[in-house]
């Protein structure tokens, strides 16, 4: 899938990935790859600006944690993030149904 198509949907993809359980940047990128079966052609770095922006918008929160002796920034979904994710899921379902109806 083209990078610009993915970038347009990056926010809900990240929110859905973090909704499962809190994760650091690298783990989020890996989960996105695994869950999509490697379908997204995404410059991995683009996930990080989105994470910082979503945090500023109050949809994600982050804190330092130590994992296997390594200090890492771990992101988790906020209440506002959960509600936005629900909204984006609903929008996507409507959109996909409409496109499918037209394409046949």
């Amino acid at each position, binding site marked *: 899938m083209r990078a610009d198509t993915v970038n347009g949907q990056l926010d809900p993809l990240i929110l859905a990935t973090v909704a499962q359980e809190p994760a650091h940047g690298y783990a989020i990128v890996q989960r996105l790859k695994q869950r999509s079966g490697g379908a997204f052609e995404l410059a*991995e*770095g*683009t996930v*990080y*600006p989105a994470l*910082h*922006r979503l945090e500023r*918008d*109050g949809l994600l929160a982050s804190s330092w944690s130590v994992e296997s002796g390594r200090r890492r920034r771990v992101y988790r979904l906020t209440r506002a993030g959960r509600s936005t994710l629900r909204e984006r899921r609903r929008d996507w379902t409507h959109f996909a149904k409409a496109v499918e109806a037209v394409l046949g």
Partner: protein
Amino acid sequence: MTWLQLLADELGARGVTGRERRRIVFELQDHIACEPGCEERLGDPRELAASFADELASAGARRCAFEVFGALAFAALALAVSQLATGWTGGYPGFNHGHSLALFVPAALGMFVASQAALVAGALAALRALRRRRASTLPAAEIALIRRRAWVGLLGGVATMVGLELYVVDFSSVMPAWWLALVGGLAAAAGATLLVAASRLVRAGAIVTRTPGSAGHVFDDLPAMRWRWLRGGPWRLGAGASLSVALAMTLFEWHAEHSLSEGVQRGVFEGLAAAAGFALLGRSIGVARKPVDARRGSPAEE
């Protein structure tokens, strides 16, 4: 120069500095440590730094707009409580009972004129931020517009709180001590909140973004006002808004004071103040611009 050093330099050049830059570099360093040699998949550090700047500036402008609106709401509460509390003391003592006209005039201008500019600019900043809350990046011109609206709102709010403090000083010899403490304390607290919002706005403004695009128009923020006549020229919106304010204040004062002539005086004063505000601040808050017809050309860049 390593990929990380290049990223750090580019972030600095875009105004992403200090703790924010350290954290970004630390996170990317951790990513590379998880999978050595993955720098190519992370992308070009220049483009990545530009993405950080564009997205952080967009989210920062939105957040500051909401923070300024919140601080202005507190200032509005302080102003409303001061007016209610004045009623509880037996009513407004009259300007000739104060210490000096030199205190009363700037106090009245701050409380009744600057407060309106603050309300309009702060509300427009928050409205645009709310309307564009889903956009990952906003055009640089739009970010600049949101920041200008937030600044005008903030300065109007500060002027209102300074006016309220001058009002307290002016009537310090005729009003009870509890009123002076309540109104003076609330104005000081609201003023401090506005200053905190100002410092955050200054910090958010340091990030350099170059995303092309238009700042949009006030009619995009207020779709309910898309009347053809209003869109014909910027002065029409100013005239319409000033007349509406004049009419509303005439009716309000007429009802409050049971005097049509006092109502008309107040209405004319408020209408003229609104027109002056539109002329002085209209361009900076993006309301005094003629919308461009999409069929004839692209919207003007700010």
